[in-house]
């Protein structure tokens, strides 16, 4: 089974404050700790189990700034075979429609896949929309809220959560699965792989380092050095490909902010109700009066 997992680096919304919001309603991600989206970790785990049991490979794709290389390294340390980062200003500030377009174009470029895994939702938006929208763009069936997956007689079976219970679906591949966190425990990073992939890098990182260390080197020479190092890393299996809009042949009218139908118009801090609150003494008299009042107001019968 050839598996692709779509993963996202997200700001840790547990620690988010209004200060981390820009006026236009986007998050100032740089101001927040960034983590591997929890549901995506479970999606990766299910993909790794499928590969370990039935053979094949696991590729991970993320879209975001270079900082997102962190979670790709993390995914490699946990057992993913290959990683790709989509990084380009023209992908940025995308809503779910534009995001799913860009991701589906990257999936098409990879081409060879049986199953695509996504986390159910990302904690910075909680929309749960990108998975189904990628499936639609690839014209393949979807199974959302998956808890478990197995194969029998050439078909894939997915146990998925439904309101108050579960159902089991049988699908033919290719198909897209979104995974609900909490049913599988993501495996830890293996020590051996962590050491191996600690130095995994990407061309923009190599370039930035060469520029910093050799500020006076002529551009042409610098390019050559960067190319040489990148190809050495690639041969050693220590290079994460970084794809731009052009690399995946995407239509720039459909990516990023330009390709996003929705606009965040206004953002407000959550204000508390300021309605008058009546203080009730925790005494027999106080509580008695309260109960009387509630009965009088027909709140209590």
């Amino acid at each position, binding site marked *: 089974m050839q598996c692709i997992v779509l993963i996202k680096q997200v700001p840790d919304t547990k620690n988010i404050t209004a200060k981390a919001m820009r006026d236009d309603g986007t998050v100032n991600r740089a101001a927040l700790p960034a983590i591997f989206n929890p549901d995506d970790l479970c999606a990766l785990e299910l993909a790794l189990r499928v590969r370990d049991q039935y053979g094949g490979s696991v590729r991970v794709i993320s879209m975001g700034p270079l900082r997102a290389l962190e979670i790709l390294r993390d995914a490699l340390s946990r057992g993913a075979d290959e990683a790709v980062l989509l990084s380009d200003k023209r992908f940025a500030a995308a809503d779910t429609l534009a995001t799913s377009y860009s991701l589906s174009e990257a999936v098409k470029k990879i081409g060879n896949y049986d199953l695509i895994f996504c986390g159910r939702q990302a904690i910075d*938006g909680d929309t749960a929309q990108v998975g189904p929208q990628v499936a*639609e763009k690839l014209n393949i069936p979807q199974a959302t*809220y998956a808890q478990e997956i197995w194969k029998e007689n050439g078909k894939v079976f997915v146990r998925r959560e439904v309101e108050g219970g579960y159902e089991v679906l049988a699908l033919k591949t290719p198909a897209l699965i979104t995974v609900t966190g909490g049913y599988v425990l993501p495996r830890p990073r293996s020590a051996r792989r962590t050491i191996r992939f600690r130095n995994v890098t990407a061309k923009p990182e190599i370039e930035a380092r060469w520029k910093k260390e050799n500020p006076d080197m002529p551009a042409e020479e610098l390019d050559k050095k960067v190319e040489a190092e990148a190809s050495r890393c690639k041969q050693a299996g220590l290079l994460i490909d970084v794809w731009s809009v052009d690399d995946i042949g995407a239509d720039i009218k459909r990516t990023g902010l330009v390709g996003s139908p929705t606009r965040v118009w206004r*953002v407000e801090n*959550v204000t508390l109700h300021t309605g008058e609150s009546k203080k009730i003494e*925790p005494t027999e008299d106080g509580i008695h009066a309260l109960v009387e009042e509630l009965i009088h*107001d027909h709140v209590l019968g």
Partner: protein
Amino acid sequence: MTPSQEIWVFAEQENGELKSVALELLGRARELADELGVEVGALLLGSDVLDLSRTLTNYGADKVYLADHPELKQYRTLPYAKVIDRTVQAHHPQIVLFGATMIGRDLAPRIASQLVTGLTADCTDLQIGNYLDPFTGVDHQNLLYQIRPAFGGNVIATIVAPNHRPQMATVREGVMKTPETTTGRVAKIVKAPAEFTDAELAVEIIEHYRKPKSVDLRAARIIVSGGAGVGGKEGFDLIRELAHVIGGEVGASRAAVDAGYIGKDHQVGQTGTTVRPVLYIACGISGAVQHRVGMQESAKIIAINLDSDAPIFSVAHYSIVGDLYKVVPLMIQAYKNK
């Protein structure tokens, strides 16, 4: 064909029973449609569901777009998405609303992608308003304001989709009032096309299991909720006793659920149930924003907490600073002696 400008609601049903959120949405759609002077359409998909169109009419629909087909008996993404996609393309509503149920959140994004339009998830409010596009300077009249909590509930964002139709949103269950029904209304039934390819019917449902719900918080008139401050499983006996005496259901904070004091069905809040009972009594709940968003619309809120600075008091109508183990028995006693 000129756009119909209608406002549509996905009338989610299972086993011939309409979801409460579908009725809540009809109520709001009716208000928005009256403001805009347009009609309300209900999208009804299923097998042998014609009867439900009466209910939808009574709750405010002017038209019922009906796709009645054996393959639509149980919800499956692809056949449902196909019907709705085709029906929207034939009639061009300006707004299409879905409940943010597990089905709504599976279906709506697929359709929005098919229609190449925007979709806002999990709205808690919808309004009509204008939007001046800062990029183009165009002043858009009468857009749908799609209002939702964002970033873990810490802010409220208003989203618009100025240049794409239909404007689509999913709306949380329980945040909008179920409207009053009116009888004597007549709605037009419009047949929606239901034809499927083999590929669209290829996903099979092998098994479908539902455990009977132990509690229906949404329908409860009174809810007595316990939090981490209850301190243990046994402590919930006291919460249950108060609920029983005054005729309510038992709710809980996530901390109480996570600690195993009570089942997940009882959880109120962002990742639990959104409730708006006549009376909500919060016992030993600090009132984190994720809890408040699920209960702050309650008509009357009583908060009992040892800590006078607990944020729950900011939404309470009656604040009792004290030990719940003293206060709750006093309430039971006061009510029994009334």
